[in-house]
């Protein structure tokens, strides 16, 4: 569970420490609500929604900070996950760059589908979207990445 939360938080925040903080906050919040667990349909979905909301709150706060500060958080940030740095090859860098440039809702849909293997229903629940919106966003995200990698391969 914590790994999925971390990957989701990292996708949104692009910062190891902040992503871990979100996981910690989420787990503590869930623990304090343990009396309610029986009433929740899906503990995992609840945790993912909670983590996503925490990330979005943090991103909103970040936007309020200076432009310079937010510029420091670009792709070459030293806060990038060390595991990511090691594994990335040229093609991988291109795919990641393309994913990072997608609109946020497309990034989240493709992340939950391709990396976590969620069903459309699960994605719709976590992201509070209709099934149709999930499909459209996934379609657009996949095709944007496809275009990018084909362009890269032919250049």
């Amino acid at each position: 569970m914590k790994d999925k939360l971390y990957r989701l938080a990292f996708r949104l925040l692009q910062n190891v420490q902040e992503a871990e903080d979100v996981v910690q906050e989420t787990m503590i919040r869930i623990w304090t609500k343990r009396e309610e667990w029986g009433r929740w349909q899906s503990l995992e979905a609840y945790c993912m929604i909670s983590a996503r909301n925490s990330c979005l709150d943090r991103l909103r706060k970040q936007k309020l900070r200076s432009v310079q500060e937010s510029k420091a958080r670009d792709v070459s940030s030293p806060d990038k996950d060390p595991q990511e740095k090691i594994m990335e090859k040229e093609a991988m860098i291109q795919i990641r760059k393309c994913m990072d440039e997608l609109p946020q809702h497309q990034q989240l849909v493709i992340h939950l589908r391709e990396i976590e293997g969620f069903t459309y229903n699960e994605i719709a629940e976590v992201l509070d979207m209709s099934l149709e919106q999930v499909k459209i966003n996934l379609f657009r995200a996949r095709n944007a990445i496809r275009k990018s990698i084909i362009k890269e391969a032919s250049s």
Partner: protein
Amino acid sequence: MKAKQERITVLLEKYWQAETTVEEEKELAEYFRGPGVPPEWESYRELFSFFEEKAQIKPSPELEGRIMESIRPRHHMVWWAAAAAIVLMLGLEPLFRHAPERVHVEQPGLVMTDTYDDPEQALAAVQKALFTVSKKMNKGLHPIK
């Protein structure tokens, strides 16, 4: 081999249209993980490999310890409460133990009086008190079950 590639071509078409099922996507990932992927699909192989590698990313091993540390104080509270109850009971114990001696202290006017005349009634009252205490202690320990 050709049949497999035809199957993958069909699945890829569905994949780009966002019409594949989770199982079909697993089939695609498995195919691109294996050997014999034609050079024209090299970019796709890299794409599936990218997703697979991203799925391996984990937070630092210390995170779990930090989470447990954040949650633990509640346990301490429960154990502290339980320990305090035990200490309190042990602290009161000598009073009960010494109580009979007090009966023998020769002081005029000091008379030991019973709370209950009926032993059955006294036993019922003690049982009720113990039941109440144990219920409260169980309630306190509930979160660590």
